[in-house]
């Protein structure tokens, strides 16, 4: 039992530590709905992974990246408004995933675990994925921090100054896809974006610089994971949603307590 909880905590902390800083970029660039769309499509990745018997994490990463590329292409064509496009892709890919799962007669799949996460079912192998993937994401974030931030602040200035804007934008999408693939096990496809956005939004209230906001988001995410797991252990509540509730409580606290450090 202790082993189980310890693994869950280790996995959760690993995901939260990475989701925080990336979540900051998602908030700054208003990509929340984009993240949600990728997350919804992750279920289709799972179904395809099972169907073709390839590693599920890999299948999800490939699908998320593929979808991100399709999105960028469609966005450029200006066929319909971006939010409509995202809505169409999010829900049709989720439905397609659910339909595909129903075809897997011979494989029993715990749908709830994929939709809402199953923190307590984390295996040793999952931990390797989380920490391997997390390390790559963090390393990329740190080494491309300045260009990522420059492009986020003002794309035109960044372009004139010689930053490869398109490539940086693509990198950010790739990172979001990676985090979603890795975090799916923890909070499930329906709740992943919350683990990125809520700690980052909470951190905004407590920070005066981008780096500060990214690190505080990381810490708050870890706090939410610990609190959620504790609650789940204490009251036998579902682990994933408990983590998200905990993050939301932290958000409410930060914005209702007179902390006011974000002022000039």
């Amino acid at each position, binding site marked *: 039992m202790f082993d189980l909880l310890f693994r869950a905590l280790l996995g959760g902390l690993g995901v939260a530590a990475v989701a925080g800083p990336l979540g900051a970029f998602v*908030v*700054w*660039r*208003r990509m929340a709905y984009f993240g949600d769309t990728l997350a919804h499509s992750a279920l289709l990745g799972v179904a395809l992974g099972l169907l073709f018997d390839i590693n599920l994490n890999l299948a999800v990463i490939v699908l998320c990246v593929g979808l991100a590329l399709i999105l960028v292409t469609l966005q450029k064509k200006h066929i319909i408004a971006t939010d409509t496009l995202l809505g169409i892709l999010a829900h049709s890919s989720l439905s397609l995933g659910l339909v595909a799962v129903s075809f897997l007669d011979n494989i029993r799949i715990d749908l709830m675990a994929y939709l809402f996460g199953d923190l307590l079912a984390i295996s040793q192998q999952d931990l390797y994925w989380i920490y391997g993937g997390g390390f790559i994401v963090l390393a990329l974030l740190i080494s491309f921090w*300045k*260009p990522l*931030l*420059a492009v*986020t*602040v*003002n794309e*035109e*200035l*960044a*372009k*004139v*100054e*010689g*930053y490869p804007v398109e490539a940086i934008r693509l990198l950010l999408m790739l990172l979001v896809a990676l985090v979603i693939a890795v975090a799916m096990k923890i909070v499930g496809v329906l709740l992943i974006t919350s683990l990125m956005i809520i700690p980052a*939004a909470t951190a*905004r209230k407590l*920070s*005066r*610089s*981008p780096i*500060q*906001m990214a690190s505080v988001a990381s810490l708050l995410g870890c706090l939410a994971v610990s609190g959620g797991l504790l609650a789940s252990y204490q009251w036998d509540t579902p682990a994933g949603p408990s983590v998200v509730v905990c993050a939301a409580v932290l958000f409410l606290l930060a914005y209702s307590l007179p902390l006011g450090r*974000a002022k*000039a």
Partner: protein
Amino acid sequence: MSDNSANALVSFDNIGIEFDGRTLLSDINMTIHKGEIVTLIGPNGSGKSTLIRTLLGLQQASSGRIQRHAQMRIGYMPQKLHIDPTLPLSVNHFLGLVKGVKKQDIPAVLARLSISKLAHKQVHYLSGGETQRVLLARALLNRPSLLVLDEPVQGVDVNGQIELYNLIASIRDELGCGVLMISHDLHLVMAKTDTVVCINQHVCCSGSPQHVKEHPEYQAMFGVPGAEDSIAIYSHHHDHVHDEHGEVTQNESHAHCNH
């Protein structure tokens, strides 16, 4: 314009731009030289910004070509700075984002623009005039041989505008760089401009400010320059309040004064 082509920083050769089958610009010929201040002037939708965006590589020309001097570096000052309020960012951080900038170069530029006290201020709390100077600082930190300024005095009161134009001219003197800027209004900018290019989808007229001012095409667009100064102020606000005339604009400029 000078004939000295060795001093040319950038030349537009027959630039034409079409978008969605609509012609935005056609047959634009223009050269900017080292140490020269060129002001683009024209009504809203005349293609001034489009032309600048083409120079910056943010937009493709449909025809013609732009010849750039091999060592030309552009410092760009956009019209506005929109930074998402969820992004905490001080002026120092914002300026530190310039590609290849050294942290120790920032204080000198801030001091030159008399905004040293803004270094630690959050960008969201800057006033219009402060924002313009911070944007100018960012353009300067890119070590430009050509400064491209898209309406550098937007959101600044008349005194501040004159101050900013003087500042731009003295920076040109110090760096010997070329300056290309967009302006709505010739009256305030003309003392500090070498060449004016009046644009309305094509080049209507160009030359010294005095020459352009007397040109019939310019006068058709902006009216015959009147004796009263109030007219000059009015013509600046003209585009912001669209095509209203008379008393309404009078109120408008009073509102600006009281601001």
